[in-house]
């Protein structure tokens, strides 16, 4: 490299578009996850195991399982998302890629949204896909299973989005995992109530359109607000490190 042949360095004005940067963040997270596939299976195994505990611990009777099944599946899915949240930012925090993410010349909340979307595709979506099998095992009828999957499909992204705030707030703290659960579970309650309530209504044969629409509203609210809070929390946690 020769100093004379290169032009003088000037401030740059154009950066890569935000959408392209979001896509890059998303695909990098996917790539990293698929190089460590076992980590992808863990939340799913956990989900199945928690569901198994209920027939063993409470009662294998068809009537009980049919009544409680949707609730069991929802609680298990919620716990399994909660368990996976600790990883959302921690590895990036440890190896320094999080610092570089915060320093990218794009709005941070959109990059956080891309990361959260990747988290959902890697944990929430597989849970939704696995739910029908477990639904059959707890003797839910076909219609209830369909509604259950729909509520999980709308609800699990909300869990990831709210969870991202907690994961960002507890980044770098000792016993972050337990603390994360303490902060996030109360905020998960509305999603849980409407998720299970919608299935209960469907089982009784009531129309569920209004409830599903309301869950959709939760999702819209979470998409618009949670990334801001998570981005702010990330900056605070990095300031502190």
């Amino acid at each position, binding site marked *: 490299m020769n100093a004379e042949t290169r032009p*003088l*360095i000037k*401030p740059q004005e154009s950066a890569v578009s935000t959408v392209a940067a979001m896509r890059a963040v998303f695909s990098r997270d996917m790539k990293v996850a698929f*190089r460590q596939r076992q980590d992808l299976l863990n939340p799913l195994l956990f989900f199945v195991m928690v569901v198994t505990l209920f027939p063993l611990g409470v009662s294998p009777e068809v009537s009980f399982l049919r009544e409680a099944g949707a609730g069991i599946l929802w609680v298990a899915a919620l716990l399994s998302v909660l368990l996976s949240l600790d990883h959302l930012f921690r590895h990036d925090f440890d190896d320094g*890629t999080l610092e570089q993410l915060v320093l990218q010349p794009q709005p941070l909340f959109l990059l956080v949204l891309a990361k959260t979307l990747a988290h959902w595709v890697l944990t929430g979506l597989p849970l939704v896909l696995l739910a029908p099998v477990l639904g059959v095992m707890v003797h839910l009828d076909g219609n209830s299973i369909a509604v259950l999957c729909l509520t999980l499909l709308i609800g699990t992204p909300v869990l990831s989005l709210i969870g991202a705030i907690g994961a960002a707030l507890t980044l770098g703290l000792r016993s972050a995992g337990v603390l994360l659960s303490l902060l996030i579970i109360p905020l998960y309650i509305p999603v849980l109530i409407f998720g299970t309530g919608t299935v209960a209504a469907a089982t009784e044969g009531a129309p569920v359109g209004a409830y599903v629409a309301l869950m959709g509203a939760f999702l819209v609210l979470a998409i618009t607000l949670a990334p801001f809070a998570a981005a702010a929390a990330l900056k605070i946690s990095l300031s502190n490190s």
Partner: protein
Amino acid sequence: MLFRDLSFSILPGTVTRVEGANGTGKTTLLRILAGLNDAWSGELLWCGKSRNWHREEFLRNVLYLGHRPGIKALLTPMENLRALVAPRRPVADSVLHQALSGTGLDGFHDVPCRRLSAGQQRRVALARLLIADEPLWLLDEVFTAIDAKGVSAIEALLQQRAAEGGAVVVTTHHELQLPGMRSIKLGEVAAQ
């Protein structure tokens, strides 16, 4: 509080070294300049404009290398370097290859970084410097885990950068002597 009444300018075409004993806040100062630490009060201007109000424009123009190299162990040097450079400007694979070869990582371009040594991983991060277009570099302990030959290459690079009109701010425990180097001394008042 680490420091107060601190005021300085960083000019194009200069290398500035932040000096001070352990715990005087060298890393903190660099993180504040980069925008990673918000726990300060005062004013920070970039090209005469408030940095906090022109965050993205500022970030486009600054390259920060911290203690943690920002390298994902599961990705290859190529993938890592692309992830670091691509959000800033479109970059061709050939340029990335060239940069990696320039830091002596020939033959390791497609090996997952967890198989590389600490020094090699840092070299992946340093490869950014060879193709950087950011006018301001903030380098925290840039010589860590780098061998003697690498150190002199980096020194030459910094000097060349300054000659081209770039601005470099470094913290290091390594004895760094460059002609025309400026310095910011931290912890001076406390020592008196």
